[in-house]
């Protein structure tokens, strides 16, 4: 029955009833009564008109809805009556719910994302394991796709799976990468990320094209014309969404290729957090390859583990069966193949996992951070609830008279609870709405910040969706019920009589006791939670400070760094050195540049190189790991790394290195050829390679560890004897100088023994020391590089301090978020204490008035009010510190140079909280002191 029906039927009720009484009156008059008598009799006979009308309405009532509307009206009226209370509650909730929703939005997009492919629940990723951890790989590359076991596999295995595994898999595909590629043919040369995919990749995962056609098996056949598919986002940014892009020719390093399609906009990558700019067929690896890969063949070689294999399960086939098939084929290839990598005893096996779990990618790095954040927001939410519950509790105590009155006129306890719950749910809904708005802003802020750390877009697609909305809705309602329930239940138990008499100090002492205990417990909980969060935040701030103020061993101020990759441009050693020389001269002549150099890796960029060396006189096969760094002329002076003894590099050192490298390489090739030709049993012996050792600079740490602090100048360091050059012993290194220690890849890593080598053939980073704001020099830098060589794309252009910020990005992110939560919890605790105390003072106004009338001084009153706060806060501090000591242990991995139980931090936080508590009591205490005894006594 709709509300409209009901309205129609009830509209004439009153006139009908009046009519009824009228007729009866007429009848009575007809029977001879006087008009008044007749009317009176008629009315008596009819009964109570109001009640009849109410009963009739009741027939139509959809009771719960009526009550709900009534409750809502009531709640709104209540909120309007105390706007300050409502504002504080809604804001508190908005902060709590907003923070939770923001973090959950990000967690959702990172952890719970749906893979943008068709039918992902039948898509499996292959990984392998064996007792032999390091078989004789010809090459092994992984690109961070798999979080757990090794999922790099050789191409021949992938092909065998495709042809022999069709009883278990309807389709099998492989991919690898992305690798940086010099992309030309579309404006100035740029560096683009290309992923190798097998011909049936798009078919297997079921992703359609936005434009053109997908790569097909024909594109992957040997000798097929090179074809690529663009990523949608790259097409939009680099090609300005040009619809005529299909059919255009471009150059990848020095191979020309044709664009045949643009992938669907929803597909970014199978592995979360990874992006590429384009897809190219696996077969292109023969011409377009990573500079880091040795010259080995990668398509036929069963020892080159470099592709990720995925397969679509045949309908009705169990994973166990598919796994058995995959393992059998793997054993065939690796044990019984032409070049066995394993024996039966190594027990090589293949595992299959669903791509959703198997391809974790970046998730593995971000997840722990997100879980820390989620725990923090969880605690914040608890504080929010405790806080709001405290406020509602205080308010409901003030409303006891109202509740008692309502019970006295017949409202059932259920009705009262429901009404209070309606009020709290209304408040939490308002808070939730505001919170959602806040979270939209929060998500933008966080992803923006994260993206700045990646120097790129946020690697995950973040968008609010139904899961997030459901989450917020659930949080909102649970919060509303949680903070509404306790006070509501208390109100419903009100004893009508004493509450109406309202002499709280005398008649309901027991009840005050109860209320105070709950209120106190809430404040203790808040203080304790705040301590935990604030101590955690404090430790992180200390860590960041420690890392920031750390001396990395070189001067990080006023520096521009950027990468160029002449190797990808196809340059040989001589050309590279020539280009570097030209660039160095041009930069040095640029106004504002103090000095300039270059190196293989940039310091503090997160990446580093290393090698094993064999010290003269050490036992055979005992090698030492050292960090290595290839550098150009003037590197030490540009970076301001002190030269402790010996000399820096001179031009002759670079020529020597180039000659030695060439000799080593040709000896290697000759040796390998000789081994191939000779009988397997022959034991070939070559004399040591005739070339000068490579001049190196070593750091102080290396001198301490390998030369027992003796002067190493002129000493020789041998190459690792683990995998000797088949063409004879390599000349090794000659120490020409000792330099100060520097941090290498990042700030946390300990300084290791390190060797600086002359840079002759490498991808490299330029370092420019400037006399002015380094960022202002960046446009000039780009111009100079473009004018010297149009084929050299720049990458990772930034100042050294940006570089440091980037390397500290995770710390900065966590610290910022934790700091925000720290401040938030302190503010919330402040609200909580304030609410409790104001209530306390209001409740005791009469008592305070009497005391003042009897001569109590302001100080006595102050003591009276504040003593209680001190006790509560002290308990909260004790509980919080104990909890913090227990919990911060789990953060020790995140900290640097500060212990998880750092007394300084804990003391500082405790002091801060005490100050906050004092601020919170200031207003109520002042009100207490300024109580006018007369007013106070009349209060009731």
């Amino acid at each position, binding site marked *: *029955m709709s509300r409209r029906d009901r309205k129609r039927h009830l509209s004439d009720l009153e006139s009908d*009833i009046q*009519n009824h009484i009228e007729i009866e009156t007429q009848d009575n008059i007809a029977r001879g009564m006087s008009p008044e008598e007749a009317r009176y009799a008629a009315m008596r006979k009819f*009964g109570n008109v109001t*009640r009849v009308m109410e009963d009739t309405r009741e*027939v139509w009532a959809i009771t719960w809805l009526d009550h709900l509307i009534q409750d809502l009206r009531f709640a709104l009226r209540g909120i309007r009556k105390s706007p300050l209370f409502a504002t504080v509650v809604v804001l508190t909730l908005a902060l709590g719910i907003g923070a939770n929703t923001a973090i959950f939005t990000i967690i959702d997009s990172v952890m719970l994302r749906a893979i943008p492919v068709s039918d992902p629940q039948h898509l499996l990723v292959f990984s392998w394991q064996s007792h032999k951890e390091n078989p004789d790989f010809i090459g092994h590359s992984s690109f961070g796709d798999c979080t757990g076991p090794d999922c790099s596999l050789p191409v021949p295995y992938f092909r065998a799976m495709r042809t022999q595994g069709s009883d278990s898999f309807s389709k099998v595909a492989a991919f690898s990468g992305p690798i940086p590629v010099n992309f030309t043919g579309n404006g100035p040369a740029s560096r683009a990320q290309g992923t190798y995919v097998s011909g049936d990749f798009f078919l297997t995962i079921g992703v359609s094209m936005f434009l053109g056609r997908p790569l097909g098996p024909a594109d992957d056949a040997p000798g097929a014309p090179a074809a690529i598919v663009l990523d949608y986002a790259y097409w939009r940014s680099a090609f300005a969404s040009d619809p005529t892009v299909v059919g255009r020719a471009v150059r990848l390093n020095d191979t020309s290729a044709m664009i045949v399609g643009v992938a669907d906009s929803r597909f970014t990558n199978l592995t979360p957090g990874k992006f590429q700019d384009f897809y190219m067929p696996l077969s292109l690896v023969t011409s377009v390859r990573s500079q880091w890969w040795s010259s080995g063949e990668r398509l036929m070689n069963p020892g080159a583990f470099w592709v990720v294999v995925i397969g679509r399960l045949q309908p009705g086939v169990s994973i166990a069966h598919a796994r058995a098939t995959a393992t059998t084929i793997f054993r065939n290839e690796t044990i019984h193949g032409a070049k066995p990598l394993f024996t039966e005893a190594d027990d090589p096996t293949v595992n299959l996992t669903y791509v959703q779990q198997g391809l974790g990618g970046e998730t593995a790095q971000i997840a722990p951070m997100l879980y820390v954040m989620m725990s923090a927001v969880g605690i914040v939410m608890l504080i929010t609830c405790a806080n709001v519950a405290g406020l509602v509790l205080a308010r409901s105590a003030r409303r006891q008279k109202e509740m008692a009155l309502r019970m006295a006129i017949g409202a059932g306890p259920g009705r009262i609870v429901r009404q209070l719950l309606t009020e709290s749910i209304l408040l939490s809904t308002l808070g939730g709405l505001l919170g959602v708005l806040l979270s939209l802003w929060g998500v933008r802020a966080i992803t923006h910040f994260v993206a700045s750390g990646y120097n790129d877009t946020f690697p995950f697609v973040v968008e609010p969706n139904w899961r997030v909305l459901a989450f917020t809705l659930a949080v909102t309602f649970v919060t509303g019920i949680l903070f509404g329930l306790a006070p509501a239940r208390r109100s419903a138990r009100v004893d009508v009589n004493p509450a109406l008499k309202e002499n709280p100090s005398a008649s309901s002492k027991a009840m005050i006791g109860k209320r105070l205990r709950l209120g106190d417990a809430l404040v203790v909980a808040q203080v304790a939670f705040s301590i935990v969060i604030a101590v955690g935040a404090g430790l992180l701030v200390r860590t960041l400070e420690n890392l920031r103020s750390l001396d990395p061993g070189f001067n990080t101020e006023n520096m521009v760094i950027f990468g160029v990759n002449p190797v990808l441009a196809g340059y040989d050693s001589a050309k590279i050195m020539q280009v570097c020389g030209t660039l160095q001269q041009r930069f040095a002549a640029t106004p504002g540049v103090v000095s300039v150099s270059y190196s293989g890796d940039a310091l503090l960029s997160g990446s580093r190189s290393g090698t094993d060396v064999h010290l003269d006189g050490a036992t055979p096969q005992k090698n030492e790991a050292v960090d290595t760094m290839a550098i150009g002329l003037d590197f030490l002076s540009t970076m301001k790394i002190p030269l402790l003894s010996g000399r820096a590099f001179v031009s002759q050192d670079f020529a020597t290195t180039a000659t030695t490298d060439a000799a080593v390489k040709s000896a290697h090739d000759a040796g390998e050829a000789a081994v191939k030709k000779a009988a397997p049993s022959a034991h070939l012996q070559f004399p040591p390679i005739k070339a000068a050792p490579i001049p190196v600079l070593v750091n102080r740490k290396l001198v301490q560890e390998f030369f027992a602090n003796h002067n190493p100048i002129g000493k020789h360091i041998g190459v690792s004897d683990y995998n000797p050059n088949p063409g004879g012993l390599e000349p090794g290194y000659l120490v020409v100088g000792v330099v100060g220690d520097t941090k290498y890849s990042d700030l946390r890593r300990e300084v290791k023994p390190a060797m600086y080598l002359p840079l002759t053939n490498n991808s490299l980073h330029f370092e420019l020391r400037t006399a002015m704001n380094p960022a202002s020099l960046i446009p000039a830098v780009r111009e100079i590089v473009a004018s010297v060589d149009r084929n050299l794309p720049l990458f990772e252009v930034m100042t050294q301090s940006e570089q440091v910020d980037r390397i500290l990005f995770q710390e900065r992110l966590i610290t910022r978020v934790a700091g925000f939560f720290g401040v938030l919890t302190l503010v919330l605790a402040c609200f909580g204490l304030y609410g409790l105390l104001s209530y306390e003072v209001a409740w005791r106004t009469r008592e305070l008035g009497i005391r003042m009338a009897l001569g109590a001084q302001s100080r006595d009153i102050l003591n009276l009010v504040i003593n209680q706060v001190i006790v509560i806060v002290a308990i909260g501090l004790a509980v919080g510190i104990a909890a913090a000591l227990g919990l911060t242990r789990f953060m020790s991995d995140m900290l640097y140079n500060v212990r998880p139980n750092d007394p300084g931090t804990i003391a500082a936080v405790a002091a801060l909280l005490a100050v906050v508590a004092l601020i919170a009591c200031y207003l109520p205490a002042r009100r207490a002191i300024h109580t006018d005894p007369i007013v106070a006594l009349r209060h009731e």
Partner: protein
Amino acid sequence: MSTKDELDRIEMLQGTLDLLILRTLVLGPAHGHAIAKAIEFRSDEVLQVEQGSLYPALHRLIKRKWISAAEGTSENNRRAKFYSLTAKGRAQLDLETRKWDKFAGAIARILRPAKQEK
């Protein structure tokens, strides 16, 4: 609290009153006052209805679609609601009447021997 007992009593009365209203409307549409008068008259004035209680009962019957209401003009020339029996109401009346007969018969059978014993 006595709420529960009261409810039971109201319900007893309701059932009976509903039956009487349905029976009255068999004769044709009538407005509220006429129905009340008819019940009083036909029961030889034994059943004194508190006339007000008629209205909730009428609305309950409308809600159940046993009767319908239409605008009309009463004898004192005022607009009034005239209630008439629906097909569904007629069927319900038959059912209720049979039930009532059964009930009254049973009560009577129990009460009569008791009278004889006296």
